[in-house]
C-alpha cells in the first residue's frame, strides 16, 4: 500500500535520517528483563566508538539503580541486532560490528532476569 495524495508526487525525506546527526548516529538498546527501566534506551553516539566502551561507559551506568548492574558480565550475554541473533566483537567499533543508524540492540543475561527473576 502507498499513501493516496493530491498532486503530482508525494515525496518527503525521513525526519530521522542519519544526515541530521552531524556525523553521529542514533542507536537503541535494551537489557531484557530489567523492566524497572521501562523501555529500550536511545543514544546519540559516534559509529567509531568502541563497543566495549559504549557498553561499560554509556549503557551500563544507565542501569545504575538496578541491583543486577554490579553482577553483569556482558561477555556472557545473548545478543540480538534488529531482533536477529548476532555475536558482537567487544574490541571493535560499533560500525565494525554492523551497528548502523537507528539499529536496535537487545541483550539478555541468563541468570540475571531481574529482581525475583520475574523481569523487573
Amino acid at each position, binding site marked *: *500500500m*502507498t*499513501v*493516496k*495524495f*493530491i498532486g503530482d508526487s*508525494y*515525496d*518527503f*525525506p*525521513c*525526519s*530521522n*535520517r*542519519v544526515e*541530521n*546527526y*552531524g556525523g553521529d548516529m*542514533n542507536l*537503541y538498546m*535494551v537489557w*531484557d*528483563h530489567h*523492566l*524497572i*527501566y*521501562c*523501555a*529500550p*534506551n*536511545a*543514544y*546519540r553516539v559516534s559509529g567509531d566508538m568502541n563497543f566495549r566502551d559504549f557498553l561499560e561507559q554509556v549503557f551500563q551506568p*544507565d542501569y545504575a*539503580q538496578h541491583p543486577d548492574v554490579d553482577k553483569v558480565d556482558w561477555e556472557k550475554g545473548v545478543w540480538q541486532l*534488529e*531482533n536477529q541473533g548476532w555475536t558482537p566483537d567487544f574490541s571493535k567499533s560499533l560500525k565494525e560490528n554492523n551497528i*548502523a*543508524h*537507528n*539499529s*536496535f540492540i*537487545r541483550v539478555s543475561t541468563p541468570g540475571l*532476569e*531481574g*529482581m*525475583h527473576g*520475574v*523481569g*523487573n
Partner: protein
Amino acid sequence: MAKNQRRLNLSQKYQLMTRGLDWETTYQPMDKVFPYDKYEGIKITDWDKWQDPFRLTMDAYWKYQAEKERKLYAILDSVVQNNSQQNISDARYLNAVKIWMQGVTPLEYAAFRGFNMLGRGFRGAGARVACQFQAIDEMRHYQTQVHAFAHYNKFFNGFNQHARIRDRAWYLSIPKSYFEDAMTAGPFEFITAISFSFEYVLTNLLFMPFVSGAAHNGDMATTTFGFSAQSDESRHMTLGLEIVKFMLEQHEDNVPIVQEWLDKWFWRGYRLLGLIGTMMDYMLPKKVMSWRQAWEIYWEENGVALFNDLARYGIRMPKHHETATREKYRITHEFWSTIYQFSHATALYTWLPDEEEMDWLCAEYGELFEKLYKPRYEYWRELDARGERFFQKRLPVVCNVCQIPIFHTYPDDPCKNICLVSEYKGTKHQMCSEGCKDIFDREPEKYCQAYIPPQQIYQGNCGGATLEDYRKWLHIRDEDAGEYYGSEDNQLWEKWQAEAARV
C-alpha cells in the same frame, strides 16, 4: 411548501438549509470547488441520501447552546465563590485534570480545526452543515474546559502552559499526533477517525472515566462541563455512526477502504486511551472502575456488539483487537511505570500507590499484578525511602506511529520489551506493536516524516541534549514536575487539611 404557511417548521428549515440553499456550481466544475472529497477513493453516488438524525437548524442550535452556557457559567461562578478547590478528594486527583487539560483539551481545539475543514470539504451540504455545527461545539468545549480549569491554576502547578507544552512536550505528542494524523488525511478518513473510532467506538472509555471520576472525586467544575458537553457528544457519536453507514451504503467499493481505516483508527485510539486508563487506575484517589473492567464493558461487550451490527455491510472486527484485549491486564501498569520514571520531564506529579490502592490493584488485576508490578513498586518505594527516588535519565525509544515510549511487551510475554522495525528509504523506524507497524507499513511515506521527540532532542532541535535543558525548553518549571509527595501541591493541600481540622 404550502402557499399560505407563514412560519416554517423545523424540518422545513432543515430541508432548506441542507438542500434548498445548496447548488451545483457552473462557473467552475464541482470537482474544482470540492477538490478533497474524491481522492481517498470513497464513492458517493447520491449525497441527498445523507440523513442527519438530529436535523438541527441554526436557531435551534443557538437556543440550546445558550441555555447550556448560562447554566454552566452559573455553576462555575459558584465553584469560585465557594472555594470548591478544597472539596476535592485529594490534591493527587488534580494530576488527572492536568493530563486532561494538557492532553485532551487541545484535542477539542484540534477537532474544531478539523471539522471546519470538513465543513468546507464535503460536497454534500447536509454533511457540511453537521460538520460546521460540530466545529462550533468543539471550540465551545475547548473554551469551557479552559475556563473550568482556570480556577485550579490559581492554586496548583502544571496548568499554566498548556498551549505551549502541547506543541513541545514528549508525552503530549501522543494525543497531538493522533489528531494531526487524522487532519493530514482526507475528509472521509478524518471523520472515520474522529467521529466514529474516537467519539463513537471509544468515547465511553474516554469521557466516562474522566467525568465520573471528577464527580466521584468532588470536582464540581469538571463534572459540570462534562454534563454540558454530553448532549453535544451524543450528537457527535450519531454523526460518526451515520457517516460510516452512509459510506458503506453508497458503494460496495467503499467497504475495503473503510475497513482499513477502522483497523487503523481502532488501534490508534486504543493506544491513546492507554493514557486515560492509567489515569483511572492510578490518578483517581477515589476509583470509579478499573481499566480492565471498563475495557470489558465498553469494548468487549458494547464495541464488539457494534461491529457485529456492521457485519451486514461486510465489515469485520478491527485487526489486533485480540491483542488489545490481551493487554488489558498490563497496559496501565506499564504506562504508569513509564510516567512515574519520567515525571521529572512532565508538568505532572507521580507517586506510588499506597497500601489500600495496591490491594485494589491486586484485586482488579490478579496474578500478573502481584507477580510483576507490585514488587516493582515495592522496590521503588525502598529506593524512595533511601532518598533515591527512581527517575530514568536516558531518553527512550518512541513508537514511530503512536509516539508512545516503547514500554510495551510481547503479547505472550509481559516480561520482555517489544520493539519492531520497518525500513523505509534506507532509514529504520521503530514501532511498539504489530498494530502500529501495520499502520506504518501501509503509508511509510507519511509516517517517515513523524516528529519524534527523543530523535528531535538528539538532533539538537529542542534546547539541548540533557533532560534539564529539554525541560527548560518545554517551559516546565522544577516545581511543576516530579514526585507528588513533598511537592508544592502536596504542601498546599496538607496546609488546607490542617486548617480545616482546626475549625
